[in-house]
């Protein structure tokens, strides 16, 4: 039973088809990553999944009582709104200060609780956003390009943190990412999106798929992967069987 599932989801904005025929599902404890070029509808897909945007076609099925922790790509706090990190965490609906401190320590912002949100650095701000999402004890954590603007070591430690969180909360993680190498290492399932789902499956499967190669066009690496792909004639069906096994 999946936590969240889409069937034939399409989004039309004006006369522009942003998404079409998206079928996907996320199960408990699964780390699912959406990759795709700019303008491929990744953020729109996340908005449909969290319920911020209604799909023009198709359905989104959420498990009853599903708690979603969402970390937006950008969150512009108006200078006119005074907001300490502690108060931000309080907006999770959990007012227990000890729990706040615990989560703040986990993500590494425990020394910043009295700071104003607008005074935080990019990395600190991202962690503060994550901390609030964690405090609602989500079944599904949805992250939109969470490592944007972070340097390499920070990206690596961020993904370690995500895996740790998955263990702690027993939740699923769905994220959009550009860090292809890390994605391929730490995801259970990869969805390659370009207006529609080009291909999806395990990282090995997707990195070998010609659709993925065509989108991200890796020179010789692509050729090698394509060769590997030639040996896997079950590509289309493998998607399914692979998901069932996972």
């Amino acid at each position, binding site marked *: 039973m999946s936590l969240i599932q889409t069937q034939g989801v399409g989004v039309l904005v004006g006369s522009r088809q942003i998404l079409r025929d998206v079928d996907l599902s996320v199960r408990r404890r699964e780390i699912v990553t959406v990759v795709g070029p700019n303008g491929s509808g990744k953020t729109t897909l996340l*908005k449909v999944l969290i319920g911020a945007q209604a799909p023009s076609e198709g359905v989104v099925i959420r498990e009853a009582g599903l708690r979603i922790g969402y970390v937006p790509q950008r969150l512009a706090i108006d200078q*006119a*709104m*005074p907001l300490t990190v502690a108060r931000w965490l309080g*907006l999770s609906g959990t007012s227990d200060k000890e729990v706040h401190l615990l989560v703040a320590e986990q993500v590494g912002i425990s020394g910043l609780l009295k700071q104003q949100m607008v005074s935080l650095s990019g990395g600190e701000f991202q962690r503060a956003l994550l901390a609030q999402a964690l405090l609602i004890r989500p079944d599904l954590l949805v992250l939109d390009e969470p490592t944007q603007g972070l340097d390499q070591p920070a990206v690596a430690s961020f993904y370690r943190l995500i895996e740790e969180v998955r263990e702690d909360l027993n939740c699923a993680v769905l994220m959009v990412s550009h860090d292809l190498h890390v994605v391929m290492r730490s995801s259970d399932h990869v969805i390659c999106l370009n207006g529609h789902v080009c291909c999806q499956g395990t990282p090995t499967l997707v990195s070998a798929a010609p659709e993925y190669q065509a989108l991200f066009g890796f020179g010789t690496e692509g050729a090698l992967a394509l060769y590997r792909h030639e040996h896997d004639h079950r590509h289309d069906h493998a998607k399914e069987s692979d998901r069932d096994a996972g």
Partner: protein
Amino acid sequence: MLDDFLWRATLAGIALALAAGPLGCFVVWRRMAYFGDATAHAAILGVALSLGFSISIFIGVLVAALAMAFMILSFSGRMFAIDTLLGVAAHGALALGLVAVTFIPGVRVDLTAYLFGDILAVGYVDLLIICAGSASILVLLRLRWERLLLLTLNADLAAARGIDTRRENMILTIMLAVLVAVAIKIVGALLITAMLIIPAAAARPVSRTPETMSGVAVVAALVAVVAGLWTSFQWDTPTGPSIVVAASALFAMASLFALVRSKHMH
């Protein structure tokens, strides 16, 4: 010692300050000052309607403000930038209201009271309606505070938490329309937005959380009301504008305080 009308004026001012403080914070946080103006200016159109159909000013103003607010919400995001659209709506409604009033047969209407308020003319029934309007805004804000804060910070974040963002936006709009109806007799259509944004803006430099800001905004609005009434009584100045002048002075002081503090810190 104090006359009855002065007591009623003071109580009406207090009621307005209590609601305008926190609601004004949302207007400032969400950059709705122009939206507030358009809604408030539509009040004059509401006054014309009330006089024309011989209904309560509060009802006419409430209906006009609501109609304006929802019209703007449904038109926004097309062809024109929102401030252009709001500028057209605000001034168009004001002008239309001023023109419409001249067509009302019978007594010649002095619009000054509706443009700048006439707090000293607040009667018992008015006072009751003002208190009821203010109280309903406060109760709504109290119940939906966290939801409205999340929505203000990020609509997607609010949606992910299962908040119906359209509904909350609508509730905020209705509260604004109620405040316009409450404030029209006190500060008048032209200065309603001032009562919303100036106390909130004065509170910003000295606040660290949304709650302190809205609390300080209430205090600033209360001080402005009392100071304005006192000035008006002492020197026979118009009351509504005197209240706004007092609020502006508080804003100037708070800004100066923030400037001096930041100089000390660097």
